[in-house]
């Protein structure tokens, strides 16, 4: 077949390669018309087709006894007992947020909510994982402020609690901020609906907002190309969120599913109607005939625009003709549009009509399954950190331990995120047992329809890109450990994991290496912990003129607790009525190292590499902590994370409003490190616990293989730390004020 040069150029302008265009011509047996080309270009984009990541993702462990839905559905779902399933997924909205931070972040929340209620689950919680450049840049401050406001505006308005998240500030995110949102929902096991269209003759119903020009040339294109100076041209297509429409859509869809009126349901995300319809058809092994003239519009649109519009707050349902009237009635009750826009066929083709005119005719498998997949060509770089923008050192070389601790506590990535989370409604739904800053993970009651099971759900989202940059395999494994540790500290056992892989351009060998190593590391940790990956998302091409972002796998985990009333907290507790002071101990194989640490960043000594560690021992230690929390044997538990042990205990002290006196000698001895590393070194597998002496001594007996070091006692109004010759003696008040103002002092 001879392909015109001009057509190839047109395809390339839409992001396809010449050989992909040829492949499309082959699959169609002719050249695509303009509408077909637009549809192909979006469905074959990185964002929809996972061209560079699909093979790698298939190496993740996805099986588990309790997995009800794994990758491939809108969200993953696991069985939590009592007839309930918990559905969850994390998704990125990075590029849209870099272009318009408020709407980008808001519609990111809207999108992930739809993925969760698409399967019939009621969204009960949102978490968000954010990355920005350092706050000395006006752009980063602006992005932070608007992204947080956007998440707040949307999440608060739809009435879903935003219960957790994380924010890091690093130079490589200056041009490419990351906005990853995770949603957790609940659904009776029998009440889930899938997205596979079926039953030729069934009606395709578009529910929700009217369609406008939103996002045309948007997410799919944006998410597949590097942002550069020409940002401006990509701008006019910003999608606007309407949380009121979403809240009606949630109730409407859940009522439709509850009344068993739907055969299938799917959200409209990237590439709009094109991808939702073809994916539903592909999963069901059927075809669809759509009539774009039936789509309710906000303004006049061309057929191809209707097919690719990314207008928000829309869902696509398959309905038996006999139930159509009932469906329409429910939609009317919720004051949301419902339009029959097509029918299910047995042709395995997606046919697009405009009234009687056939505007496009494409094999469903060509659209969904036959996009060429590419092999990554990883090459390990000589220096893993060479490609990244660096931060100016913020800490003078001769800083003493006390100054160092205060500098770390006030460093925006470590400092209190109260400025952000107080903008989120973390209470709506009356489930929030552990709210932000009270514990390492959010804990929500596992209740349904007013019936409290007494059990709890814990959730956390984590990922430290800087450490992954230092060693992608170990860094990604650490992200899984961190999430698992957060769950253990509240007494929860992991049920499943979702992830978002935020990376640079995978066509570059060193990025391909980061991606490959990170997925392998994550995979190894999931296997070691026995946690299945039930879903996720990939965001590639996060690069700007100053280089790529840090490789940032973000891990979200959901776990269960037998008793929400026994959920752990991270605060030390003062002794009551002159009783004995609580003892403080470090549980786990934690071996502190300054490699990749926050201190290395602040001190300007960051270098590649991270120390290896034994996943099995970490798992053992976390199980011990989990059981101790559940049994009430400890009064607090807090894992060692950014800033090391000194920062961790400072946080316990600040949250508890009570001091502590600790000596790190046993750690220095066991780990064979210098005092500075003992104080500020980082690494997985450490949990600081406090509790009555007797019960901690009991715990130490069980800790044989995994590590237990008594460090000191809780009490007083000062935090006193001794590590060899180094000492720190700060008042709880001073520590708190630095911690509280580290972030809030930098934003307007």
């Amino acid at each position, binding site marked *: 077949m001879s392909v015109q040069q001009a057509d190839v150029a047109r395809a390339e302008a839409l992001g396809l390669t010449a050989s992909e265009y040829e492949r499309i011509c082959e699959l169609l047996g002719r050249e695509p018309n303009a509408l077909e080309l637009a549809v192909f270009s979006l469905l074959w984009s990185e964002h929809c087709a996972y061209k560079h990541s699909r093979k790698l993702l298939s190496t993740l462990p996805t099986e588990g006894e309790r997995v009800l839905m794994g990758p491939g559905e809108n969200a993953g779902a696991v069985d939590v007992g009592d007839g309930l399933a918990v559905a969850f997924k994390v998704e990125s909205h990075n590029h849209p947020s870099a272009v318009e931070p408020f709407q980008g972040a808001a519609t990111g929340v809207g999108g992930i909510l739809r993925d969760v209620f698409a399967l019939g689950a009621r969204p009960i919680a949102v978490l968000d994982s954010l990355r920005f450049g350092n706050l000395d840049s006006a752009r980063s401050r602006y992005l932070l402020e608007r992204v947080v406001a956007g998440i707040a505006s949307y999440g*608060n*308005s739809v009435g879903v609690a935003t219960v957790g998240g994380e924010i890091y500030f690093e130079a490589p995110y200056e041009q490419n901020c990351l906005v990853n949102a995770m949603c957790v929902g609940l659904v009776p096991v029998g009440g889930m609906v899938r997205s596979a269209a079926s039953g030729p003759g069934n009606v395709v119903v578009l529910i929700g907002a009217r369609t406008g020009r939103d996002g045309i040339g948007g997410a799919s294109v944006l998410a597949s190309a590097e942002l550069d100076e020409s940002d401006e041209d990509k701008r006019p297509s910003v999608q606007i969120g309407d949380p009121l429409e979403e809240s009606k859509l949630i109730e409407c869809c859940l009522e439709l599913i509850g009344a068993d009126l739907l055969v299938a349901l799917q959200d409209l995300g990237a590439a709009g109607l094109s991808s939702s319809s073809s994916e539903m058809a592909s999963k069901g092994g059927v075809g669809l005939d759509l009539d774009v003239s039936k789509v309710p519009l906000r303004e006049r649109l061309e057929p191809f625009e209707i097919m690719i519009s990314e207008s928000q707050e829309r869902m696509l349902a398959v309905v038996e003709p006999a139930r159509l009237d009932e469906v329409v009635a429910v939609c009317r009750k919720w*004051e949301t549009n419902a339009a029959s826009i097509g029918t299910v066929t047995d042709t395995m083709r997606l046919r697009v009509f405009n009234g009687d005119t056939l505007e496009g005719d494409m094999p469903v498998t060509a659209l969904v399954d036959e996009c060429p997949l590419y092999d990554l060509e990883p090459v390990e770089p000589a220096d893993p950190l060479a490609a990244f923008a660096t931060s100016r050192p913020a800490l003078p070389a001769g800083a003493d331990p006390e100054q160092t601790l205060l500098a770390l506590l006030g460093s925006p990535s470590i400092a209190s995120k109260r400025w952000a989370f107080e903008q989120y*409604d973390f*209470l709506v739904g009356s489930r929030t047992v552990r709210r932000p800053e009270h514990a390492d993970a959010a804990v929500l009651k596992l209740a349904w329809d007013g019936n409290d099971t007494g059990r709890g759900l814990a959730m956390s989202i984590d990922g430290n890109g800087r450490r992954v940059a230092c060693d992608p395999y170990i860094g990604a494994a650490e992200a899984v450990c961190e999430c698992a540790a957060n769950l253990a500290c509240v007494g929860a056992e992991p049920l499943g994991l979702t992830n978002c892989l935020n990376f640079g351009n995978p066509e570059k060998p060193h990025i391909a290496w980061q991606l490959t190593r990170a997925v392998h590391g994550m995979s190894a940790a999931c296997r070691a912990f026995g946690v299945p990956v039930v879903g996720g998302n990939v965001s590639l091409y996060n690069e700007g003129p100053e280089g790529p972002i840090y490789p940032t796998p973000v891990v979200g985990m959901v776990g269960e607790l037998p008793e929400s009333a026994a959920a752990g907290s991270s605060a030390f507790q003062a002794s009551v009525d002159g009783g004995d002071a609580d003892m403080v101990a470090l549980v786990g194989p934690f071996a502190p190292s300054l490699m990749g640490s926050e201190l290395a960043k602040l001190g300007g000594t960051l270098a590649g590499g991270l120390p290896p560690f034994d996943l099995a021992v970490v798992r053992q230690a976390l199980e011990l902590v989990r059981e101790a929390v559940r049994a009430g044997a400890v009064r607090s538990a807090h894992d060692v994370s950014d800033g090391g042990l000194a920062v961790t205990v400072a946080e316990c002290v600040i949250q508890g409003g009570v001091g502590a006196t600790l000596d790190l000698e046993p750690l220095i001895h066991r780990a064979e490190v210098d005092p500075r590393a003992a104080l500020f070194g980082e690494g997985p597998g450490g949990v600081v616990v406090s509790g009555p002496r007797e019960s901690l001594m009991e715990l130490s007996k069980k800790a044989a293989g995994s590590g237990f070091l008594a460090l000191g006692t809780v009490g007083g109004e000062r935090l006193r730390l001794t590590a060899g010759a180094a000492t720190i003696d700060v008042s709880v008040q001073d520590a708190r004020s630095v911690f509280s103002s580290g972030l809030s002092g930098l934003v307007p």
Partner: protein
Amino acid sequence: MSAGGGSIFVVRVGVVVFPGSCDEADAYQAIERAGLEAEYLWHGERNLRGCDAVVIPGGFSYGDYLRAGALARFSPVMEAVSGFALEGGPVLGICNGFQVLCEAGLLPGALLLNESLRFVCRQLHVQVERTDSAFTGACEQGEVLSVPVKHTTGRYFAPDDLLQRLEHEAQVVLRYVPGENPNGSLHDIAGVVNEQRNVMGLMPHPEHATDPLTGSTDGLKLFSSLAVRGATVPA
């Protein structure tokens, strides 16, 4: 209607649901926890189906578009609520419900954008200024309650003369304790009642303070006040 010797009069409380309401289920649960019966009242309904009291819950009715509470107050159910309130029926507006009641003219004053211009979600303390209202009867005078706020538009405002009248008539029933005013409200006002003291609005969320596991149980008192008050509701 009689209260009987010391026995609690159980009332049926309607919880109004607008498009965009968020805390209706929380309010429903809180009412039940206070030992009362709860029932949802859909925004399109034109009567209160015999409810003895009404709660307008928090959220973002009609997206808070235009002005918080401005669109909701024109929904059919609000006509019934107005009539009920004017006859002396107990009506509680929480957060967005407070905004709706102000917009509807059932409560004095208005709620403006927080001074910080931001949404604020925070546990804080309010002091009970008066116990002689439909929803504070179960509290002690001067009692301090731990309750959360969560809103963007909670800065209570009334023009000077009105404000003085409110103070003079003791219509300010809840105040943020000194130093904890989260939004710039005049006189630290957190909650007010109408002249008849049967309609109350407050920015804090008592329905989110009815369970020790999720923060506090102090909010229960506002709902259980209804049980005490039930006896005096006009038939």
